[in-house]
């Protein structure tokens, strides 16, 4: 066993932290959230220059050939600094699945522009009931001629306003369970696609996407027809780990902020951090964050060597979601009234809790997977 990071991994973290705090100071992020796109395209392209969008892609697709654990480090830093933009939807939700399930043609066509930061992707999975259960994925894709016709709508689709392509999960078969589901690559400018903004408390960009008899060719199928749920599970496993990584970084940021404030803020002639009541909150945060980190690194490392463990992935995601919420609340209350103001960054993190809990699978879903793993 080895619980240490390699030199390159330490360097990646240092580079990422330096770049992100320089390019996205909190004041800039606040301004960017008010702009129409919700992120800074120049920073997006600079990230591509650093090789981030293609971090785990092979060199033949213009990637950097790093491992999944490296990607986790990058996402931790993004979560730490609350980086706006379509990085999660493009990289976590789509590029990994394209690499795993795409044909040679699909990979050559779609992956290099992702690595260059030229094309943005998103996943259209969730429907009105907001459930990850395969029985709740019912948008039909009806075979017609040499292709399919998609009709229906998807919700909680991130960054649909800037995405060039979507992975759309639809039902091609009769069955109501995991069988009969197919994943399609769909260009967002196809006629019949319309989007409606779903403003969120986090300030990220999520949309309802409606498909009105959208025609797609057979060649747009990713993987096999009817075999789409396997792809969804592949995506959700990785998305769960990478969202957990974002939360891990965010939790660390909240702890650092709160710890610094507790040393600085004086009441009754001493720093509030000298009071045991405040110390208890902070100590609990340390334990939670260590737990998140090791659960996360183990789950990511197992993915990196091709031995993904659903129980370990779910444990990491469930722990992070629960602890992120608690840490934000305790961090805010430890700050006192200043923590409740717009100027304080704490609320910024708290506002992201619900999105993070849902993306990559909600806590109920992951607890159920763990229970199944316990043979319950």
């Amino acid at each position, binding site marked *: 066993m*080895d619980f240490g990071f390699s030199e390159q991994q330490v360097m990646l973290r240092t580079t990422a932290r330096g770049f992100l705090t320089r390019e996205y100071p909190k004041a800039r992020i606040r301004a960017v959230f008010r702009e129409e796109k919700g992120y800074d395209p120049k920073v997006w392209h600079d990230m591509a220059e650093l090789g981030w969008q293609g971090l785990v892609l092979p060199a033949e697709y213009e990637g950097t050939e790093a491992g999944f654990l490296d990607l986790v480090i990058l996402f931790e830093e993004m979560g730490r600094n609350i980086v706006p933009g379509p990085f999660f939807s493009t990289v976590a939700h789509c590029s990994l699945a394209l690499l795993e399930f795409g044909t040679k043609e699909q990979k050559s066509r779609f992956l290099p522009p992702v690595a260059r930061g030229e094309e943005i992707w998103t996943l259209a999975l969730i429907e009105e009931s907001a459930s990850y259960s395969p029985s709740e994925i019912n948008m039909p894709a009806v075979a017609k001629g040499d292709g399919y016709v998609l009709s229906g709508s998807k919700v909680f689709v991130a960054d649909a306003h800037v995405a060039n392509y979507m992975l759309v999960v639809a039902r091609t078969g009769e069955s109501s369970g995991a069988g009969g589901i197919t994943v399609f690559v769909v260009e967002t400018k196809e006629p019949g696609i319309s989007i409606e903004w779903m403003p969120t408390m986090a300030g990220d960009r999520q949309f309802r996407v409606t498909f009105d008899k959208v025609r797609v060719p057979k060649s747009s199928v990713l993987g096999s027809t009817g075999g789409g749920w396997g792809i969804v599970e592949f995506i959700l496993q990785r998305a769960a780990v990478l969202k957990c990584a974002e939360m891990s970084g965010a939790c660390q940021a909240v702890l650092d902020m709160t710890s610094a404030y507790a040393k600085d803020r004086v009441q009754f002639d001493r720093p509030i951090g000298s009071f045991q009541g405040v*110390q208890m909150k902070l100590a609990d945060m340390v334990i939670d964050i*260590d737990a998140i980190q*090791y659960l996360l690194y183990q789950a990511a490392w197992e993915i990196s060597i091709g031995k993904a463990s659903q129980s370990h992935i779910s*444990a990491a995601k*469930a*722990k992070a979601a*629960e602890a992120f919420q608690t840490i934000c609340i305790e961090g805010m209350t430890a700050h006192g009234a200043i923590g409740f103001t717009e100027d304080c960054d704490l609320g910024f993190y708290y506002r992201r809790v619900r999105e993070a809990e849902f993306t990559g699978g909600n806590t109920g879903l992951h607890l159920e997977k763990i229970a199944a793993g316990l043979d319950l």
Partner: protein
Amino acid sequence: MDFTLDEASTKLQAEISAFAKKEMPKAERELYLMIDQECPDFEFEMSMSKKLAQRGWLTMSWPKEYGGGGASYFEQTAYEMEIAYQSIPGAWMGISGIQWVGPVIMALGTQEQKKKYLPLIAAGEKDGVWCTGYSEPNAGSDLANLQTRAVKTGDKYIINGQKVWTSQAHHARWCWCLVRTTPMTEKKHHGLSLIIVDMKSPGVTVRPLLNFYGRHHFNEVFFENVEVPAANLVGMENKGWYHLMQALVHERRSFAPSMYGVCKKAVETLVEYAKNAKHEGEPLSQCVGVRNQLASIAVDLEALRLFAFQITWLVSQGGMPIYEASRNKLMADMLTRRIGLAGAEILGAYSQVDPYASSLARLNGKIQGWYLGFPGNHIAAGTSEVEKSVIAQFKLGLPKSY
């Protein structure tokens, strides 16, 4: 990073599992799953110590020259997890010949001390069973406040005072005793020394101190003009506090593995129970509340396993765990609490049955015993409040709060 447990450790766990099946009939294993890891039958416990010694496991962590097996830190952790998981008693030689008495004597003891004490521990002899005399009535969390006095007279120390919460003192042959050798020092933790006291010495009185559910685990130990040879001083006089800190590194690594083992067994026991018990005609395991609760406990259980190995890795790299030890203890304590509360809920009305007095107690009273016992974990070997203060102070650099 690499999260694979090495082959030697994995093999060792399989061997211990087979050993447990052979040496401990199921009924006995059932009986000994106790949160305080204490076996109610001392003779049986010692017979297991002997067998562990014969297999070369009891002191596997010690260097070969002292009767040990020279095992790696990872093997030790794996061993401690499995021993606890299999509910095998007798692995610690009291409190605790294996975990700190032996290692500190090896590091600081004289040749005579090494020759006299280490073989008894390594062989699993009754005369190798220890108790640890740290706490006193006015020295709990504030341990350096202890008042038991050792006065040097010629080649002897004369000891007077009282220790309390002394676990296993009624079985121990030796007491690993922290005493005050210099009364007036600028700081209270100066002037303390580690001295080995023969529990058979005249003037030593052990009085049982029953816990709130009537179990005899700890004691009061009184010292009245007890004569101890000066040769029983461990390390340097007045440096006892620093020697104790050194001892803690061993204790700190070995805490989480055994707690992980017992907690894992308890979770599996509850899973089995929930699958067999019925609620409104359906297996209890089909209730969402039960599933969520056990799944959520399993998350922290896995975190504790990783914490145990992380600290093992740190020690194997030559590092000194500080806040990590407090973190591990707090995680383990929280887990025992969650298991106790969830277990009581799962047992329902049967959770109130006296585990020690009624044949109607479900699961042989294990879960009820756990429910009664877990608050003690939050107190023993450092209260949760103290452990959290350690994290605040040493991990986060916050001002001392006490």
